[in-house]
Structure formats: C-alpha cells, structure tokens
C-alpha cells in the first residue's frame, strides 16, 4: 500500500531547508567513495547532479542516448534563468520569487519545495558564473537582467538567446572534469529501457547500447532519473526530436507514482506549422514578448498584408484585456487567448493559423540595432525557417506544447515512491504546479542537480554503508534483461504495414485535439476510447525493419511510442478526473464569466498521483493534499 509522505521539514518556511540539511543522515567524506550512483540523463539536471555527486566523492555512472552529454534537450532553452538577486533594485526577494512561482503555478505546487527553489536560485547564478558561463553584462561589467512573462520584476539572467546552451556547457564541462579524473563513467548512446527494483527498492537499470544493440544491466546504491519531459506525446512540440517519456514511464510501471500527468504547458510564441510534413515546432523565445506587440486584425478572414492594416483595425487582444500585464501575461493565458482569436477566424498567415508578434514599435522606440542585439539570433532563426524577414514584417506565432509540469511524484528529498529512485528536472512534478513561469525550468533543473540532490541523497545512502549494490547476475536483473529482449523480439516479429512515425503522429492528433489547450469531458471520454484502440492497432500492425543487433532507429522509436501510448492514456484519465481548470489545464466546464481558468480549491487542492496496477487494470489515484500557509489562495488575475 502506497502512502504519500512528502517529508516536508518542520519550522517556518524560511528555515525548512536549513533544518532539513541539519537533520538528514550524512555520509562522511572518506566513505562517499564506497557508494555507486547511477544518473540517467545529462541535461541540466542530470549533468549538474552527476558532476556535483562526483565532486563530493561518490562513484557515478551517467547514461545518455545522445552521442555527447553536451547535446541534451536543455541546450535549446533560449530565454533565460531566474533568480531573485535583486541586482536591479526593483523590489525582488526570495519571498517574491517564491510567491510568484506558487501563484504562477495556480496554487497546485508544494510551498516548501518552491521556497527552497527560490532560496537556492541565487547560488545557481554564482555557480554558473564561476564556471565561466558568459551571461549578458552591462557596460560596467556587472550582470544584466531582463523581465519575463508572469513577473513584474527584472530577474532573468541570460546569455544572448542561448542561455540553455551556455548553462548546459557549464554543467557538461564540470562533468567532463569528473570524467577525466575517473569519478564519472560516461555511457553515451545508451538507451535506458528499464528500471530494476529488488524488494521494492531501486537496484539499477537495463540499457541497450545503441551502436551494438547489446542489452546490459547496471546496478548501484541509488538511481537518479533526470530524463526530461514527455511533451512529445503530442508528436508536434518544441521539444527535441528524441525527447521521450520512456525512463519515467518504465519507473512508473515499477512502482513510482506519476503525478499530475495532465499538466502541460502550451507555449504561446512558436512558429505555426507550415505543412503536413512538419516534424517539430520551433519556439521563439518568450523574451520576445517584452518588446513585441501581439495582435490580429479586428475583422474576420482578413486578406490584407499586415502593413496594409491600419492601426485602428488591429486588435491588440492581450493589451486590451489585461492592461496591467499586457503582452507579458503568463503563458497559459497568452496561449488560450491566441487560440480564441484564431478559432474566431482572425488567424493570420497562409494557413490562418497564427497571430502577429510585431516589433515595429520597439524598432521605432529603441532603434534597429537595439532590437538586433536583444533578439538577433532569434530573428535569424525565424527567417531561416519561414523565409520571412521579421525586421520588416511581423512574426507569426501560435501556441505549441512546450513543457510538462507533471512527472514522477517526489518527496522533499526528490525521491520517488520507490526508495532509492530519484527524479530531477523536468522528469519530476515538483515546483511548478499547474503552470511553469518562464525561465524557471532551467532554475529548477540546476537547483535539483547542483544543490538539492547532493544534500539529500545521503539520507538514503548512509544506512547502506558496507552493503554492495545488488549484483547484476541477480534474478531481478536477468529477468529484466529477458523482458527487454522479449519486447524487442515482439517488435521485430510484428512485420506490420505502417512505420512507427505514422502511429506517433496519430497519437499526437488525438492528444492535441482532446487534451491540448482546452479540454472537456466529452472530448476526454472520446480520447479514452481512441487511445487504447490506436495502441492495439499499433501493436498488431507496426513495421520495424532491420536488425536489433546494431544501430536501429526504428527499434529505438517503437519502444518510445509504445510507452507514449500508455502515458497518453494516463494523461487523459488525469485530465478527465480533474474537473476544474488550473494553470495549463483548462477544462471548458470550469471557467469564470470572463473565460478565465476557474479553480475548485474545495475539491482539487491536491497533487494527483497515479499508481500503476498492470496493463489490464485501472490505475489508483492517490492524493497529496496541498496546504497553503504563506501564499493565500486567490483566483489568479492578471487584469
């Protein structure tokens, strides 16, 4: 029987983290080398955790399906990373960052975790600067900041439009230093296909070498999953092509509860799809909303070019509806409003599937050079993709799936419901509630990896001093390897008619249609029957060519899509059960008269964590009730 114990420390919120660090069991420096830790993932969360654990003295094995740890999806983050340094003297503080994050998450996150996140955020900026991350600077040589959606202070640190890349290089370089001294062993091009437990505790993993096809077991005293989000369940998203939910899904099947799978963030500023062959959607950083004005023609089915539409026929819908925040309202609000105007028939572009993001005012006010310095590389990217020059015509944007707030349930130590199994970064559910604020994912991934896990993992390890990890010839491992091999054989034998891509695309259509920006009971019910039907057809009729004994990208993908099929069903189930709107989860049945998300705190102020009961059984819902002692529950309003 699972019980959800969040292990929130005692004391006033500002003292909880210190109290906790004092009360966790420690492993003394000389004994750290007697522990092995597996880290899966080398994104911001995984690379920072692996490097920091190795610096402490633990033996770390790190796994990634990329050819190099430097390539994780984190590298694509453009806009920036938050911290409440208050370098701008604009009234920022740890408390304000905490408050904004809880409010921005629409009161569906755990206060204690969010407060800690805000506390360690400043240390992240210090750490990254010391590593040589070239953050943007003012002429005096001190750090620059920008403001970001959902915040009224300037607290975002950035490195041109390449913040994720620079932060990841910092973490990767720290990791490389530990690889060089032998404290970290790197397994690149390694696909983790299962998580192994013994007597209910984490024992290790099973991997497939993506070059040779060899399936191997690895064991350790603790297993850390930092495997990113599952946004690609929608097929089209801003995530990198290889992002997938398999590691966390496999962990879920081994007993780790999956929390709030329905919370997905749809990002308002992406380039609209151009044709049916589109393989992914490209994000235009949200920082563009600082200077770009969003509008559509007031009239319907407009055919004039943007510059032919006079000012009074332009509908600046965010500025009109939300005068205080204007174009900087949180992502969910901006996205839904864009959907509304496009659905009304005001969409722009060849497929009428976008809204304008216009820099004419910024150019006139600050000059082309200033705009270029701030956004040059984003503008170049836009032009390469669309063939249009945003210095002379407005950009076209439309919302796309971007981030998944849901993930494995973790306690205050970042441990899942499987003892010894941890989840970090986008892979866990913590901190962002039902909606994530801009520039807060990088902050959370690095907080988890640099500062939280290295301080909490010893609580699990210390009592195991002197124990060896479960040997890899133990039946739990040999059976897990057999299961992986059986699954491979099964795919190779189907010899069906459609490739894997076909099924992924079909799944994406169902999930986007019924569990995307707006959801309702009838649609979700429909998805609940369509997804299992598609999954059955997929398992009977998918085509995987080639051999399992070597590089086989179809085989890699078939496992991922298979896991997405199950994950999608849980996501829809969760969306169906949560009959309220909150943050990125908008249930049409639950809205204010103005069309804003209407929460139901009486019935839904909890984390919904699902327990796997087997392929043919319904999962069980467990609830972690959320207490709000510091941030008063109010209806969000950005008017």
């Amino acid at each position, binding site marked *: 029987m699972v019980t959800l114990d969040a292990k929130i420390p005692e004391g006033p919120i500002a003292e909880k983290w210190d109290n906790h660090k004092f009360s966790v069991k420690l492993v003394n420096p000389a004994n750290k080398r007697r522990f092995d830790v597996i880290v899966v993932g080398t994104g911001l969360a995984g690379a920072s955790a692996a490097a920091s654990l190795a610096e402490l003295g633990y033996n770390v094995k790190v796994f990634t399906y*990329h050819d190099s740890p430097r*390539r994780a999806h984190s590298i694509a983050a453009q806009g920036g990373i938050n911290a409440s340094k208050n370098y701008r003297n604009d009234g920022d503080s740890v408390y304000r960052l905490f408050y904004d994050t809880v409010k921005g998450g629409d009161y569906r996150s755990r206060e204690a975790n969010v407060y800690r996140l805000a506390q360690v955020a400043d240390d992240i900026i210090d750490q990254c600067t010391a590593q040589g991350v070239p*953050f943007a*600077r003012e002429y005096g*040589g001190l750090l620059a900041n920008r403001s970001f959606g959902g915040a009224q202070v300037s607290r975002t640190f950035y490195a041109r439009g390449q913040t994720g890349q620079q932060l990841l290089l910092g973490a990767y370089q720290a990791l490389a*230093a530990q690889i060089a001294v032998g404290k970290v062993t790197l397994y690149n091009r390694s696909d983790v296909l299962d998580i192994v437990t013994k007597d209910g505790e984490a024992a290790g993993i099973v991997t497939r070498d993506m*070059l040779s096809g060899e399936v191997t077991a690895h064991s350790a005293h603790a297993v850390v999953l930092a495997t990113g989000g599952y946004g690609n369940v929608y097929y089209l998203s801003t995530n990198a092509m290889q992002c997938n939910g398999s590691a966390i899904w496999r962990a879920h099947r081994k007993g780790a509860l999956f929390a709030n799978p329905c919370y997905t963030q749809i990002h308002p500023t992406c380039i609209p799809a151009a044709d049916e062959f589109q393989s992914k959607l*490209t994000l235009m950083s949200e920082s563009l909303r600082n200077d770009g004005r969003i509008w559509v023609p007031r009239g319907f089915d407009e055919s004039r070019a943007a510059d032919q539409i006079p000012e009074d026929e332009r509908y600046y819908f965010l500025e009109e509806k939300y005068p205080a925040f204007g174009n900087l309202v949180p992502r969910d609000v901006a996205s839904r409003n864009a959907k509304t105007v496009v659905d009304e028939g005001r969409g722009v572009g060849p497929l009428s599937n976008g809204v304008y993001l216009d820099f004419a005012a910024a150019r006139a006010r600050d000059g082309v050079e200033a705009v270029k310095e701030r956004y040059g590389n984003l503008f170049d990217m836009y032009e390469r993709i669309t*063939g249009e020059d945003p210095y002379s015509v407005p950009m076209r944007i439309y919302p796309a799936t971007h981030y998944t707030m849901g993930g494995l349930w973790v306690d205050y130590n970042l441990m899942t419901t499987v003892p010894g199994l941890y989840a970090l970064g986008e892979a866990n559910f913590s901190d962002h509630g039902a909606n994530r604020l801009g520039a807060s994912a990088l902050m959370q991934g690095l907080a988890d990896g640099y500062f939280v896990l290295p301080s909490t993992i010893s609580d699990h390890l210390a009592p195991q001093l002197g124990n060896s990890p479960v040997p890899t010839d133990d039946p739990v491992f040999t059976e897990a390897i057999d299961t992986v091999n059986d699954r491979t054989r099964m795919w190779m034998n189907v010899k069906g008619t459609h490739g894997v891509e076909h099924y992924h695309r079909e799944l994406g259509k169902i999930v986007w249609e019924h569990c995307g920006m707006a959801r309702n009971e009838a649609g979700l019910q429909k998805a609940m029957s369509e997804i299992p039907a598609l999954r059955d057809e997929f398992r009977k009729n998918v085509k995987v*060519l080639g051999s399992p004994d070597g590089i086989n990208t179809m085989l890699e993908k078939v496992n991922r899509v298979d896991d997405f099929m199950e994950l999608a069903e849980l996501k829809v189930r969760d969306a169906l059960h949560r009959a309220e709107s909150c943050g990125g989860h908008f249930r049409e049945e639950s809205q204010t008269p103005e069309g804003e998300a209407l929460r139901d705190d009486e019935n839904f102020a909890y984390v919904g964590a699902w327990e796997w009961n087997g392929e043919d059984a319904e999962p069980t819902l467990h609830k972690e009730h959320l207490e709000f002692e510091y941030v008063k529950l109010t209806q969000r309003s950005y008017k």
Partner: protein
Amino acid sequence: MTRMLNLKLRIWRQNGPDSEGAFLDIDAPGIPEDASFLEMLDVVNERLISDDIEPVTFDHDCREGICGTCGVMINGQAHGPEKATATCQLHMRKFNDGDEITIEPWQATSFPVLKDLMVDRRTLDRIVEAGGYISAPTGTAPDANEIAIPKEAAEMSMDAAACIGCGACIAACPNSAGQLFTAAKLAHLNVLPQGQPERWKRTEAMVETMEDFFGACTNHGECHEACPKEVPLDFIAMMNRDYVRSKVKNRSLASQ
C-alpha cells in the same frame, strides 16, 4: 501555394564501420519548399519504409541548429550551401526543382562512419575532458557580481562559446584539423577572469590532445566557412599564441 520540388538524390549508405558503402540513387518527388532538409529526408525515409527498405540513418535532435547533433555533406559542403546554417535549419526553398543532391556523412578519419550518414565524434569530448573547464566545484562560488567582467570580454567569450560542437569545421577541412573547435573551446574560458588560473595548463593539454586526434592546420579557413555559428578564425591565432606561451608559463609555474 507552396512550391513543390522534384529532386534526384544520391545518398551514402553504409551498414557499419567495417562495411563497404555505396550510393543509393533515388528520386524524391513532391517535396514542399517549406520543409527543412531533414524533413525532406524524413519523407524519403517514410517512402523507403513503405517499400520495406530500412530508412537512412542520420543523427539529429533539436532541429533548431543548437544541439550540434546533425550534420551531413551536401553536394560536398558541410551543412550545405547556406552560410551560418546547420543542416537541420537548411530549408528546401534554397534548392530548385530538378536539382541533384549528393548527401554524404562527415568525412574525417577521426570521425568514423557508424551507419549511413551517422558518424562517431567522441574525440571532441576527449578534447574538452583534457582541460575545457574551470575547476569550480559546486558550492565554492563567490557572488556572481563580485568579479566584474568587461562587457567586451563577456561578448568575446560568448562568440566562442556559441560553438555547437557539430564537427563541421573538421569535416570541411582538407586536413581534418580540429583547430577551430579547440580554439573556440579555449577562447570561451581563456578570455574570462575566472578562466585565468588554469589558462596555461588548459591550453597546453587541449592543444596536445587535439593533435593526438586531428590533422594539422594549414590555414585554409574552410572551417570558418562551414561553421553554422560563424566562430571567428581569430580564435585560432589566439590559441596558437597562448600555446607557445603556455610552454614557458607551465614550466615556470611548476618551478615556483
């Protein structure tokens, strides 16, 4: 209306590092000009799959020109004809109806072919492991504004750090030299105040590791031409100067 292109492709196919390779000649009709180069390959692959032929293997991930995973030779040019553009960001509107396009993997002895268009670039990581970092264990950092960094230095560091590690510089070089990559990695850290304590040790170790794996630089400049991030050639001169100085500096540091 989107323009459609009908193309003739020659794609390199090779089953493994030790197998013989050969070109596959294949027509690719009906490719929309708005598709990216990799989306064009996706379409070709879907057609191959429906004919029960294994799809062409190529490396890719972000498809936004930032992760450095993609990269093929397109008509003999690393990342193809568009300047400052990675393969995934190249769009078919840069081609004409009826074009013949030859697609091959990176060619460099230090990048062996793994399968079809996929190569092994692990040697780039070895260069970084040799010293491409600042030793600042987690928790030891002073306040980020304690050390002011002139904006110019931060900008120069960023110009170098923009390298995406794709390996195009090496693939484009007639000697398969690793100078531009290594110089970018060095300049990123060596121009910052935080990078000074390890500057000379880093330079010596990284340059020598580079020489273990890659060819010699004879100043062709093809690397810069192929670079999707236009990393400046000046960094190579900076690296060469630092390398010479590092020999002296490291000896005198050791004798202190």
